């Protein structure tokens, strides 16, 4: 069983690294997800794959160790949150640039800090599809305690 899992983990990591090196932002996000899945499988495998009962007292023993599953659950929850955040960043980049190439972020080399690049991309979401601006206008009393 372990060699099969090792193979699957290796494949997932390889796919993840391949996608991570891509220029398309969404592929980078997918690559990170693949690597996170590989990490979870790796925890499950190193803690021991055994043909035993789930850790429930109503079932006859011996039981499997519940701790790695708790670790994986935590890692999945955290990975979910970070993926959501990364997708939000990717969406903002798409809104700002209008395409989802890494070039959306501009070039870091030889940049001139006084160029337009350093200013706000948009005070209130001036993007190709300007959804947030309408939201702001629909709500004339913005929240927040600004004087």
């Amino acid at each position, binding site marked *: 069983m372990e060699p099969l899992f090792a193979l699957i983990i290796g494949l997932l990591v390889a796919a993840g690294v391949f996608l991570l090196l891509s220029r398309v932002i969404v592929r980078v996000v997918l690559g990170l997800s693949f690597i996170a899945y590989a*990490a979870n499988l790796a925890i499950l495998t190193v803690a021991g794959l055994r043909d035993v009962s789930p850790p429930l007292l109503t079932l006859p023993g011996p039981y499997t160790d519940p701790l790695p599953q708790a670790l994986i659950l935590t890692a999945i929850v955290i990975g979910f949150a*970070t993926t959501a955040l990364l997708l939000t960043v990717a969406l903002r980049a798409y809104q700002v640039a209008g395409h989802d190439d890494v070039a959306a972020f*501009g070039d870091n080399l030889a940049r001139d800090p006084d160029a337009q690049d350093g200013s706000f991309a948009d005070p209130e979401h001036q993007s190709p599809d300007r959804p947030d601006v309408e939201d702001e206008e629909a709500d004339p009393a913005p929240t927040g305690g600004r004087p």
Partner: protein
Amino acid sequence: MTPADLAWLPLAPILTPMGLGLLLLYPWRRPVRVGLAFAGALLTLLFAAGLVAATAGGTVLSSSLGGWPAPFGIVMVADRLAAWMSLLAALSGLLAVWQAAADPDPVREKHHFFALLFFLFTGVQMSFLTGDLFNLFVAFEVMLVASYALAVLGSTREQLREGFRYIVMNLVASALLVVTCGLAYGVLGTLNFAHLAQRSAELGPNTTVTAVGVLLLVVFAAKGALFPLGFWLPGTYPALPPAAGAFFAAVLTKVGIYALMRVFTTVFPQDPALPNTLLLGLGAVTMLFGAFGAVSQREWRRILSFTVISSVGYLAFGLGLGTPEALRASVAYLAVSVLVTAALFAIAAVAERAAGSRLVRMRGMLDFLPLLAGCFLLCALTVAGLPPTGGFVAKYALVRAGLAQGSPLALVAVVSALLASLVLLYAMLSVWRGFFWGRHLLTFPVYRVPLGLRGVAYTATALVAGLTLFAGPLFGWAEATARELRQPEGYIRGVLGTDPVVIPPPPTLPEEP
């Protein structure tokens, strides 16, 4: 008071910023929000100072979450090093809150800048005070998610670019940390630092344990921006809003260094040859990389970001030497580095505001901001490690420890440390020459800077000067910390107690009625 009476104390600096962060999510008016933030930062500082006072006698405080005893449940542990880091983080946090309060930023504050800052404090304090490897991963994630949000808050194109790179880099490192946690559990059957230390001591030098240690080294090197993995840092920090940038620069890389110290002194000290060689080599390269990078830049906070990288190199060098003197010098340099970075970023915020540009190109600002120039000079000398500053004392101790250790790699690292100091001095002096010295050109207007913002820079510099004046007590504390780190038995006893850990037998099936 006994340690049992104070068992709540390691939780206090974590829960205070967390509660305040939740409170700050409500859209208060700005004065209320700023007042709350100040109160929260002060309270955290108070609790952290309490931790330092409580652990000064060598007590190890441990609080078990949910009442589950140590190796089974998660514990928060405060020994001297953890309490010290907690105090430094709380101090930088207070300075960051002050800077944010003095520099209104309506767009970012509307989108919960202060709340995110407090969640960041929560994660940082939890990373310093946790006593469990997997909980360290969780703490890192709490800290990093808040820092990701702060990094892209405001959505300038520069922030999105640098923030995306920062997020991807840290997510890959986090995935590696999860795998390493799994491996450590698979090899040693536990994740509690004290229990890991106990079991790895029973096992003796073991290649698998060393491999786990080296994997952890890679992870923490990425978080702490050691040489090949620190490329994201000099772009990310200048893109941040100044207050958040100051806290990031002062504390976040030190979290990685703290984790390295914890892992290689308390948890896996059995087979130090390979990790120490790696740390020495990487440290030697990192400090030169940071120093030459600082010379190559023309923007205030880019130059300073490279000096942060350089300071990480010095800390890795001290840790890699592996002698008690080197450890003592590293602990002292840690304090110097945190405070001087906070001070320099505060000075940079004032300078950028006064000149209206991020570039170091103004000249002649000595006439307009004489006190700031004095502050900068003191901090610059501290970074370069020249007398009469705390930076000199700490770097001198590091170099002397390197010479005393005497292996060829250590000697190479010593040469690199001295060279890097020289290059850093050149970088700092070219900032001095380019900004403060010379004749002011009337074509460049000078803007007024609010007193609150200047006050941050002055206060932070006063703290740096205080480190110089109280270098004796600082080294006394560092000595005690290093001694405690060399003897993990105290930490183990503080967390697990004196009785051997008994793993209960698997429960038997209840009798059928």
